[in-house]
Protein backbone atom coordinates (compact mmCIF):
# COMPACT_ATOMS: atom_id res chain seq x y z
CA UNK A 1 0.00 0.00 0.00
CA UNK A 2 2.55 2.51 1.22
CA UNK A 3 4.82 1.76 -1.68
CA UNK A 4 2.32 2.16 -4.46
CA UNK A 5 1.01 5.49 -3.26
CA UNK A 6 4.46 6.96 -3.00
CA UNK A 7 4.45 9.19 -6.03
CA UNK A 8 6.34 12.38 -6.54
CA UNK A 9 4.49 15.45 -7.63
CA UNK A 10 6.36 17.47 -10.13
CA UNK A 11 5.66 21.11 -9.77
CA UNK A 12 4.83 22.31 -13.22
CA UNK A 13 2.97 25.24 -14.56
CA UNK A 14 -0.69 24.91 -13.79
CA UNK A 15 -1.83 24.44 -17.34
CA UNK A 16 0.35 21.44 -18.07
CA UNK A 17 0.12 20.08 -14.57
CA UNK A 18 -0.75 16.39 -14.59
CA UNK A 19 -2.30 15.37 -11.31
CA UNK A 20 -1.66 12.13 -9.52
CA UNK A 21 -4.90 10.55 -8.48
CA UNK A 22 -5.26 7.46 -6.38
CA UNK A 23 -8.28 5.31 -7.04
CA UNK A 24 -9.49 2.93 -4.37
CA UNK A 25 -11.75 0.63 -6.36
CA UNK A 26 -13.85 -2.14 -4.97
CA UNK A 27 -13.06 -5.57 -6.28
CA UNK A 28 -16.55 -6.56 -7.34
CA UNK A 29 -17.91 -3.54 -9.21
CA UNK A 30 -15.67 -0.54 -9.81
CA UNK A 31 -12.55 -2.55 -10.47
CA UNK A 32 -14.43 -4.73 -12.90
CA UNK A 33 -15.85 -1.55 -14.44
CA UNK A 34 -12.35 -0.22 -14.90
CA UNK A 35 -11.40 -3.52 -16.46
CA UNK A 36 -14.27 -3.28 -18.88
CA UNK A 37 -13.29 0.27 -19.82
CA UNK A 38 -9.84 -1.05 -20.59
CA UNK A 39 -10.88 -4.09 -22.59
CA UNK A 40 -13.39 -1.99 -24.50
CA UNK A 41 -10.52 0.33 -25.47
CA UNK A 42 -12.16 3.39 -23.99
CA UNK A 43 -9.94 6.40 -23.65
CA UNK A 44 -9.54 7.87 -20.21
CA UNK A 45 -6.75 9.87 -18.57
CA UNK A 46 -3.80 7.85 -17.28
CA UNK A 47 -3.57 9.93 -14.09
CA UNK A 48 -5.51 7.46 -12.01
CA UNK A 49 -3.40 4.91 -10.13
CA UNK A 50 -5.64 2.14 -8.99
CA UNK A 51 -5.49 0.29 -5.71
CA UNK A 52 -7.91 -2.57 -5.54
CA UNK A 53 -9.72 -3.12 -2.28
CA UNK A 54 -12.20 -5.87 -1.56
CA UNK A 55 -14.98 -3.45 -0.73
CA UNK A 56 -15.41 0.30 -0.52
CA UNK A 57 -16.30 -0.37 3.09
CA UNK A 58 -12.69 -1.39 3.60
CA UNK A 59 -11.48 2.14 2.99
CA UNK A 60 -10.34 3.71 6.20
CA UNK A 61 -10.27 7.52 6.04
CA UNK A 62 -6.58 7.31 6.85
CA UNK A 63 -6.01 5.63 3.47
CA UNK A 64 -7.37 8.73 1.80
CA UNK A 65 -5.52 11.18 3.99
CA UNK A 66 -2.30 9.20 3.72
CA UNK A 67 -2.55 9.19 -0.07
CA UNK A 68 -2.83 12.98 -0.02
CA UNK A 69 0.11 13.09 2.37
CA UNK A 70 2.30 11.00 0.15
CA UNK A 71 1.79 13.13 -2.90
CA UNK A 72 -1.59 12.32 -4.44
CA UNK A 73 -3.44 15.40 -5.63
CA UNK A 74 -6.76 13.67 -5.42
CA UNK A 75 -8.45 10.46 -4.40
CA UNK A 76 -11.31 8.65 -6.09
CA UNK A 77 -13.26 6.03 -4.21
CA UNK A 78 -15.22 3.56 -6.28
CA UNK A 79 -17.89 1.24 -4.93
CA UNK A 80 -20.90 -0.77 -6.03
CA UNK A 81 -24.22 0.98 -6.50
CA UNK A 82 -26.29 1.17 -3.33
CA UNK A 83 -27.99 -2.16 -2.85
CA UNK A 84 -25.43 -4.03 -4.96
CA UNK A 85 -22.65 -4.44 -2.43
CA UNK A 86 -21.12 -7.89 -2.49
CA UNK A 87 -21.07 -7.73 1.28
CA UNK A 88 -24.54 -6.22 1.45
CA UNK A 89 -23.72 -3.02 3.33
CA UNK A 90 -20.09 -2.05 2.81
CA UNK A 91 -20.80 0.71 0.35
CA UNK A 92 -23.50 2.18 2.59
CA UNK A 93 -21.00 2.45 5.41
CA UNK A 94 -18.41 3.94 3.09
CA UNK A 95 -20.97 6.52 2.00
CA UNK A 96 -21.36 7.79 5.54
CA UNK A 97 -17.65 7.94 6.16
CA UNK A 98 -17.09 9.75 2.93
CA UNK A 99 -19.72 12.38 3.70
CA UNK A 100 -18.10 13.18 7.05
CA UNK A 101 -14.56 13.16 5.69
CA UNK A 102 -15.39 15.57 2.90
CA UNK A 103 -16.94 18.02 5.31
CA UNK A 104 -13.99 17.74 7.64
CA UNK A 105 -11.44 18.34 4.90
CA UNK A 106 -13.37 21.37 3.73
CA UNK A 107 -13.47 22.66 7.27
CA UNK A 108 -9.70 22.63 7.71
CA UNK A 109 -9.15 24.23 4.33
CA UNK A 110 -8.50 21.34 1.99
CA UNK A 111 -10.58 21.48 -1.16
CA UNK A 112 -13.14 18.68 -0.80
CA UNK A 113 -13.23 18.21 -4.56
CA UNK A 114 -9.93 16.41 -4.19
CA UNK A 115 -11.74 13.48 -2.65
CA UNK A 116 -14.54 12.01 -4.73
CA UNK A 117 -16.69 8.94 -4.58
CA UNK A 118 -18.49 7.17 -7.38
CA UNK A 119 -20.72 4.18 -7.93
CA UNK A 120 -19.59 2.14 -10.90
CA UNK A 121 -20.94 -1.29 -11.63
CA UNK A 122 -19.08 -4.04 -13.49
CA UNK A 123 -20.96 -3.21 -16.67
CA UNK A 124 -20.39 0.53 -16.57
CA UNK A 125 -17.09 0.82 -18.40
CA UNK A 126 -18.28 3.97 -20.07
CA UNK A 127 -19.30 5.58 -16.80
CA UNK A 128 -15.95 4.73 -15.30
CA UNK A 129 -14.07 6.38 -18.13
CA UNK A 130 -16.30 9.46 -17.88
CA UNK A 131 -15.88 9.76 -14.13
CA UNK A 132 -12.10 9.46 -14.34
CA UNK A 133 -12.07 12.12 -17.01
CA UNK A 134 -14.27 14.44 -14.98
CA UNK A 135 -12.30 13.97 -11.80
CA UNK A 136 -8.94 14.38 -13.54
CA UNK A 137 -10.07 17.58 -15.23
CA UNK A 138 -11.35 18.96 -11.98
CA UNK A 139 -8.19 18.18 -10.05
CA UNK A 140 -6.02 19.45 -12.85
CA UNK A 141 -7.93 22.69 -12.51
CA UNK A 142 -7.26 22.73 -8.75
CA UNK A 143 -3.53 22.32 -9.24
CA UNK A 144 -1.05 20.44 -7.07
CA UNK A 145 -2.06 19.92 -3.48
CA UNK A 146 -0.54 22.51 -1.16
CA UNK A 147 -1.66 21.21 2.18
CA UNK A 148 -1.06 17.90 3.90
CA UNK A 149 1.73 16.82 1.59
CA UNK A 150 4.76 15.49 3.39
CA UNK A 151 7.62 17.92 3.04
CA UNK A 152 10.39 15.37 3.59
CA UNK A 153 12.74 18.26 4.09
CA UNK A 154 15.62 15.96 4.90
Amino acid at each position, binding site marked *: MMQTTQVEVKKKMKKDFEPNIIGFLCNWCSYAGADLAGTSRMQYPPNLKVIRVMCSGRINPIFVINALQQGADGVLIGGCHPGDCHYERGN*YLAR*RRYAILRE*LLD*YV*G*IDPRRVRMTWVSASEGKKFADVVKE*VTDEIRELGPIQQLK*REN*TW
Partner: protein
Amino acid sequence: MVNEKQLRDEVKKLVSRDDVKYVIGYEQGTYGFQVTPSFAFTPEEAERFIFSPLCANNLSVYLMLEEKPPLRKGEKEDTRKVGLVVKGCDARAVVQILQEKGLKRESLVIIGVPCTGVIDPKKITVKFPHQIKPVDVREEGNHYVLTINGKNQKIPKDELLFEKCKQCEYPTPVIHDVLLGDEVKSTKKEEYKEIKTLEKKALKEKWEFWSKAFDRCIRCYACRNVCPLCYCKECIVDQLSPQWIYRSVNRSENTVWNLIRAYHLAGRCSGCGECERACPMNIPLTMLNKKIEKDIKELFQYVAGVNLEEKPLLAMFKPNDTEDTIL
Protein backbone atom coordinates in the same frame (compact mmCIF):
# COMPACT_ATOMS: atom_id res chain seq x y z
CA MET B 1 -25.66 22.52 42.83
CA VAL B 2 -25.16 19.31 44.72
CA ASN B 3 -25.38 18.78 48.42
CA GLU B 4 -21.91 17.45 49.19
CA LYS B 5 -23.05 15.67 52.31
CA GLN B 6 -25.60 13.76 50.30
CA LEU B 7 -22.87 12.88 47.80
CA ARG B 8 -20.51 11.60 50.48
CA ASP B 9 -23.25 9.60 52.17
CA GLU B 10 -24.16 8.01 48.89
CA VAL B 11 -20.51 7.15 48.13
CA LYS B 12 -20.01 5.76 51.63
CA LYS B 13 -23.04 3.58 51.17
CA LEU B 14 -21.68 2.34 47.88
CA VAL B 15 -18.15 1.52 48.96
CA SER B 16 -19.51 -0.37 51.94
CA ARG B 17 -21.22 -2.74 49.55
CA ASP B 18 -19.44 -6.01 48.86
CA ASP B 19 -20.00 -5.80 45.15
CA VAL B 20 -18.39 -2.39 44.72
CA LYS B 21 -14.64 -2.11 44.25
CA TYR B 22 -14.24 1.63 44.50
CA VAL B 23 -15.92 4.89 43.58
CA ILE B 24 -14.37 7.56 41.42
CA GLY B 25 -15.12 11.15 42.34
CA TYR B 26 -13.51 14.51 42.93
CA GLU B 27 -11.42 15.88 45.76
CA GLN B 28 -9.76 19.18 46.51
CA GLY B 29 -6.69 19.76 44.34
CA THR B 30 -3.27 20.83 45.49
CA TYR B 31 -3.43 24.53 44.74
CA GLY B 32 -5.68 27.35 43.61
CA PHE B 33 -8.69 26.27 41.64
CA GLN B 34 -7.56 22.72 41.08
CA VAL B 35 -9.84 19.79 41.62
CA THR B 36 -8.44 16.34 41.21
CA PRO B 37 -9.86 12.87 40.59
CA SER B 38 -10.18 10.77 43.71
CA PHE B 39 -10.64 7.08 44.31
CA ALA B 40 -12.52 5.89 47.37
CA PHE B 41 -12.00 2.29 48.41
CA THR B 42 -13.27 2.80 51.93
CA PRO B 43 -15.96 4.94 53.58
CA GLU B 44 -13.17 7.01 55.19
CA GLU B 45 -11.76 7.85 51.81
CA ALA B 46 -15.19 8.94 50.69
CA GLU B 47 -14.94 11.76 53.24
CA ARG B 48 -12.61 13.56 50.82
CA PHE B 49 -15.18 13.75 48.07
CA ILE B 50 -16.43 17.13 46.93
CA PHE B 51 -18.49 18.53 44.15
CA SER B 52 -18.19 22.14 43.13
CA PRO B 53 -18.41 24.18 39.94
CA LEU B 54 -14.67 23.51 39.58
CA CYS B 55 -15.17 19.80 38.90
CA ALA B 56 -14.41 19.90 35.20
CA ASN B 57 -12.71 16.51 34.71
CA ASN B 58 -14.63 13.83 32.91
CA LEU B 59 -14.05 10.89 35.22
CA SER B 60 -15.44 8.28 32.84
CA VAL B 61 -11.98 8.14 31.28
CA TYR B 62 -10.87 6.06 34.26
CA LEU B 63 -13.32 3.32 33.45
CA MET B 64 -11.31 2.36 30.41
CA LEU B 65 -7.95 3.13 31.99
CA GLU B 66 -8.30 0.53 34.68
CA GLU B 67 -5.39 -1.85 34.41
CA LYS B 68 -6.05 -5.51 34.61
CA PRO B 69 -2.77 -7.35 35.12
CA PRO B 70 -2.81 -10.96 33.91
CA LEU B 71 -4.38 -13.27 36.47
CA ARG B 72 -2.10 -15.55 38.43
CA LYS B 73 -2.79 -19.23 38.76
CA GLY B 74 -5.90 -19.83 40.80
CA GLU B 75 -6.72 -16.12 40.87
CA LYS B 76 -10.24 -15.09 39.95
CA GLU B 77 -11.18 -12.02 38.00
CA ASP B 78 -12.42 -9.17 40.14
CA THR B 79 -15.89 -8.54 38.78
CA ARG B 80 -16.95 -6.03 41.37
CA LYS B 81 -18.58 -2.85 40.21
CA VAL B 82 -16.94 0.52 39.87
CA GLY B 83 -18.79 3.58 41.06
CA LEU B 84 -18.54 6.83 39.20
CA VAL B 85 -19.68 10.41 39.73
CA VAL B 86 -20.90 11.88 36.45
CA LYS B 87 -22.15 15.16 35.12
CA GLY B 88 -24.39 15.45 32.07
CA CYS B 89 -21.67 15.32 29.44
CA ASP B 90 -19.72 12.62 31.29
CA ALA B 91 -22.81 10.44 31.33
CA ARG B 92 -23.06 10.68 27.57
CA ALA B 93 -19.53 9.35 27.30
CA VAL B 94 -20.54 6.44 29.53
CA VAL B 95 -23.55 5.74 27.35
CA GLN B 96 -21.34 5.77 24.29
CA ILE B 97 -18.88 3.31 25.85
CA LEU B 98 -21.75 1.02 26.83
CA GLN B 99 -23.27 1.33 23.38
CA GLU B 100 -19.99 0.21 21.85
CA LYS B 101 -19.87 -2.65 24.34
CA GLY B 102 -16.63 -1.33 25.82
CA LEU B 103 -18.10 -2.05 29.24
CA LYS B 104 -21.04 -3.89 30.71
CA ARG B 105 -23.79 -1.87 32.35
CA GLU B 106 -23.77 -4.15 35.36
CA SER B 107 -20.13 -3.35 36.03
CA LEU B 108 -20.99 0.24 36.85
CA VAL B 109 -22.79 2.17 39.51
CA ILE B 110 -23.42 5.66 38.29
CA ILE B 111 -24.00 8.59 40.61
CA GLY B 112 -25.55 11.30 38.50
CA VAL B 113 -25.05 14.95 39.26
CA PRO B 114 -27.50 17.31 37.59
CA CYS B 115 -25.06 19.90 36.31
CA THR B 116 -25.52 23.63 36.06
CA GLY B 117 -22.24 24.15 34.27
CA VAL B 118 -18.61 24.03 35.33
CA ILE B 119 -15.87 26.63 35.42
CA ASP B 120 -13.17 26.74 32.78
CA PRO B 121 -9.93 26.59 34.78
CA LYS B 122 -8.14 28.64 32.13
CA LYS B 123 -10.65 31.48 32.49
CA ILE B 124 -10.55 31.57 36.26
CA THR B 125 -6.74 31.40 36.42
CA VAL B 126 -6.52 34.43 34.16
CA LYS B 127 -8.64 36.33 36.68
CA PHE B 128 -6.71 35.14 39.73
CA PRO B 129 -3.24 34.19 38.48
CA HIS B 130 -1.61 34.17 41.90
CA GLN B 131 -4.12 32.15 43.83
CA ILE B 132 -2.36 29.34 45.67
CA LYS B 133 -4.65 28.51 48.57
CA PRO B 134 -7.71 26.50 47.63
CA VAL B 135 -10.79 28.61 47.09
CA ASP B 136 -14.36 27.88 48.00
CA VAL B 137 -16.61 28.42 44.99
CA ARG B 138 -20.37 28.44 45.24
CA GLU B 139 -23.08 29.05 42.77
CA GLU B 140 -25.75 31.62 43.49
CA GLY B 141 -28.23 32.14 40.71
CA ASN B 142 -26.41 33.66 37.80
CA HIS B 143 -23.25 34.24 39.76
CA TYR B 144 -20.37 32.39 41.28
CA VAL B 145 -19.35 33.42 44.75
CA LEU B 146 -15.65 32.97 45.48
CA THR B 147 -14.36 33.21 49.03
CA ILE B 148 -10.78 34.43 48.87
CA ASN B 149 -9.00 35.33 52.11
CA GLY B 150 -12.33 35.57 53.89
CA LYS B 151 -13.77 38.00 51.37
CA ASN B 152 -16.59 37.13 49.04
CA GLN B 153 -16.39 37.96 45.39
CA LYS B 154 -19.27 37.75 42.97
CA ILE B 155 -18.59 36.97 39.34
CA PRO B 156 -21.21 36.49 36.64
CA LYS B 157 -21.41 32.85 35.58
CA ASP B 158 -21.02 33.66 31.94
CA GLU B 159 -17.52 34.99 32.48
CA LEU B 160 -16.23 31.75 33.90
CA LEU B 161 -18.31 28.98 32.34
CA PHE B 162 -16.86 26.62 29.82
CA GLU B 163 -18.09 27.49 26.35
CA LYS B 164 -19.52 23.98 26.03
CA CYS B 165 -21.66 24.50 29.12
CA LYS B 166 -23.30 27.56 27.66
CA GLN B 167 -24.97 25.42 25.01
CA CYS B 168 -25.36 22.20 26.95
CA GLU B 169 -28.49 20.30 25.96
CA TYR B 170 -28.10 17.42 28.39
CA PRO B 171 -27.22 18.83 31.83
CA THR B 172 -28.86 15.95 33.69
CA PRO B 173 -27.04 12.62 33.26
CA VAL B 174 -28.94 10.55 30.72
CA ILE B 175 -27.89 7.45 32.61
CA HIS B 176 -27.63 7.03 36.35
CA ASP B 177 -28.38 4.71 39.22
CA VAL B 178 -28.63 7.49 41.75
CA LEU B 179 -29.43 11.08 40.97
CA LEU B 180 -28.34 13.66 43.50
CA GLY B 181 -30.81 16.51 43.72
CA ASP B 182 -33.36 17.61 41.21
CA GLU B 183 -33.17 17.19 37.50
CA VAL B 184 -31.92 20.24 35.63
CA LYS B 185 -33.91 20.98 32.49
CA SER B 186 -32.07 22.64 29.67
CA THR B 187 -33.61 25.30 27.54
CA LYS B 188 -30.35 25.86 25.71
CA LYS B 189 -29.69 24.85 22.19
CA GLU B 190 -26.38 24.18 20.56
CA GLU B 191 -26.20 26.71 17.74
CA TYR B 192 -22.67 26.04 16.51
CA LYS B 193 -22.16 29.75 15.93
CA GLU B 194 -18.37 29.60 15.96
CA ILE B 195 -18.34 26.59 13.68
CA LYS B 196 -20.67 28.19 11.19
CA THR B 197 -18.58 31.36 11.06
CA LEU B 198 -15.44 29.39 10.31
CA GLU B 199 -17.20 27.18 7.79
CA LYS B 200 -18.15 30.20 5.73
CA LYS B 201 -14.59 31.41 5.38
CA ALA B 202 -12.49 30.79 2.30
CA LEU B 203 -10.45 27.59 2.11
CA LYS B 204 -7.25 29.56 2.38
CA GLU B 205 -8.34 31.31 5.55
CA LYS B 206 -9.47 28.07 7.11
CA TRP B 207 -6.18 26.40 6.32
CA GLU B 208 -4.29 29.35 7.78
CA PHE B 209 -6.30 29.13 10.96
CA TRP B 210 -5.84 25.40 11.40
CA SER B 211 -2.27 25.07 10.23
CA LYS B 212 -1.27 27.75 12.72
CA ALA B 213 -3.00 25.79 15.46
CA PHE B 214 -1.62 22.42 14.39
CA ASP B 215 1.89 23.84 14.11
CA ARG B 216 1.81 24.32 17.85
CA CYS B 217 0.95 20.69 18.51
CA ILE B 218 3.73 18.83 20.32
CA ARG B 219 2.00 15.47 20.02
CA CYS B 220 1.93 14.80 23.74
CA TYR B 221 -1.38 13.03 23.09
CA ALA B 222 -2.94 14.52 26.20
CA CYS B 223 -6.06 15.02 24.05
CA ARG B 224 -6.16 11.32 23.36
CA ASN B 225 -5.39 10.09 26.83
CA VAL B 226 -7.86 12.37 28.55
CA CYS B 227 -10.65 11.32 26.21
CA PRO B 228 -12.94 8.66 27.64
CA LEU B 229 -13.66 7.38 24.15
CA CYS B 230 -10.05 7.05 23.02
CA TYR B 231 -9.57 3.58 24.36
CA CYS B 232 -8.19 1.60 21.43
CA LYS B 233 -5.72 -1.01 22.56
CA GLU B 234 -3.20 0.33 20.12
CA CYS B 235 -3.65 3.85 18.85
CA ILE B 236 -2.98 4.43 15.18
CA VAL B 237 -0.09 6.77 15.98
CA ASP B 238 1.65 4.09 18.01
CA GLN B 239 1.31 1.50 15.31
CA LEU B 240 4.59 0.67 13.63
CA SER B 241 3.70 -1.45 10.66
CA PRO B 242 2.17 0.03 8.73
CA GLN B 243 3.13 3.32 10.23
CA TRP B 244 0.40 5.60 8.97
CA ILE B 245 1.48 8.67 10.85
CA TYR B 246 5.16 9.42 11.27
CA ARG B 247 6.34 10.55 14.64
CA SER B 248 8.04 13.62 13.21
CA VAL B 249 6.44 16.76 14.49
CA ASN B 250 5.68 18.86 11.45
CA ARG B 251 2.68 20.44 9.81
CA SER B 252 1.72 17.48 7.66
CA GLU B 253 1.89 14.84 10.38
CA ASN B 254 0.34 17.09 13.01
CA THR B 255 -2.58 17.89 10.73
CA VAL B 256 -3.18 14.25 9.98
CA TRP B 257 -3.00 13.34 13.64
CA ASN B 258 -5.52 15.96 14.62
CA LEU B 259 -7.86 15.11 11.75
CA ILE B 260 -7.74 11.41 12.45
CA ARG B 261 -8.26 11.94 16.16
CA ALA B 262 -11.32 14.03 15.46
CA TYR B 263 -12.58 11.62 12.83
CA HIS B 264 -12.26 8.64 15.09
CA LEU B 265 -14.62 10.42 17.44
CA ALA B 266 -17.19 11.02 14.73
CA GLY B 267 -20.54 10.00 16.13
CA ARG B 268 -18.90 9.10 19.41
CA CYS B 269 -17.74 12.39 20.91
CA SER B 270 -19.95 13.40 23.79
CA GLY B 271 -18.71 16.97 23.72
CA CYS B 272 -17.18 17.03 27.19
CA GLY B 273 -14.34 19.21 25.91
CA GLU B 274 -11.67 17.43 27.91
CA CYS B 275 -9.31 17.32 24.93
CA GLU B 276 -9.25 21.06 24.68
CA ARG B 277 -8.90 21.50 28.42
CA ALA B 278 -5.96 19.08 28.54
CA CYS B 279 -4.17 20.53 25.52
CA PRO B 280 -1.16 22.46 26.81
CA MET B 281 -0.87 24.23 23.47
CA ASN B 282 -4.39 25.73 23.45
CA ILE B 283 -5.40 24.08 20.20
CA PRO B 284 -9.16 24.62 19.73
CA LEU B 285 -9.91 20.91 19.52
CA THR B 286 -13.60 21.16 20.37
CA MET B 287 -14.04 23.20 17.24
CA LEU B 288 -13.07 20.10 15.29
CA ASN B 289 -15.22 17.77 17.34
CA LYS B 290 -18.21 20.10 17.28
CA LYS B 291 -17.97 20.44 13.52
CA ILE B 292 -18.37 16.71 13.09
CA GLU B 293 -21.10 16.68 15.71
CA LYS B 294 -22.96 19.32 13.75
CA ASP B 295 -22.50 17.49 10.46
CA ILE B 296 -23.80 14.20 11.71
CA LYS B 297 -26.76 15.95 13.25
CA GLU B 298 -27.57 17.53 9.92
CA LEU B 299 -26.68 14.62 7.67
CA PHE B 300 -27.80 11.65 9.70
CA GLN B 301 -29.97 13.14 12.47
CA TYR B 302 -27.73 11.43 15.00
CA VAL B 303 -26.65 12.52 18.46
CA ALA B 304 -23.97 10.54 20.22
CA GLY B 305 -24.33 9.10 23.69
CA VAL B 306 -27.96 9.73 24.48
CA ASN B 307 -29.61 6.46 23.64
CA LEU B 308 -28.27 3.21 25.02
CA GLU B 309 -30.21 1.13 22.51
CA GLU B 310 -28.95 2.90 19.42
CA LYS B 311 -26.20 1.46 17.24
CA PRO B 312 -22.99 3.42 16.69
CA LEU B 313 -23.28 5.93 13.88
CA LEU B 314 -20.68 4.47 11.55
CA ALA B 315 -21.80 0.88 12.11
CA MET B 316 -25.20 1.48 10.58
CA PHE B 317 -26.76 3.28 7.66
CA LYS B 318 -30.01 4.42 6.15
CA PRO B 319 -30.74 3.57 2.51
CA ASN B 320 -31.43 7.22 1.82
CA ASP B 321 -28.26 8.68 3.33
CA THR B 322 -26.89 11.70 1.51
CA GLU B 323 -25.52 11.13 -1.99
CA ASP B 324 -25.05 14.77 -2.96
CA THR B 325 -21.46 14.66 -4.02
CA ILE B 326 -21.26 11.08 -5.27
CA LEU B 327 -20.61 10.79 -8.98
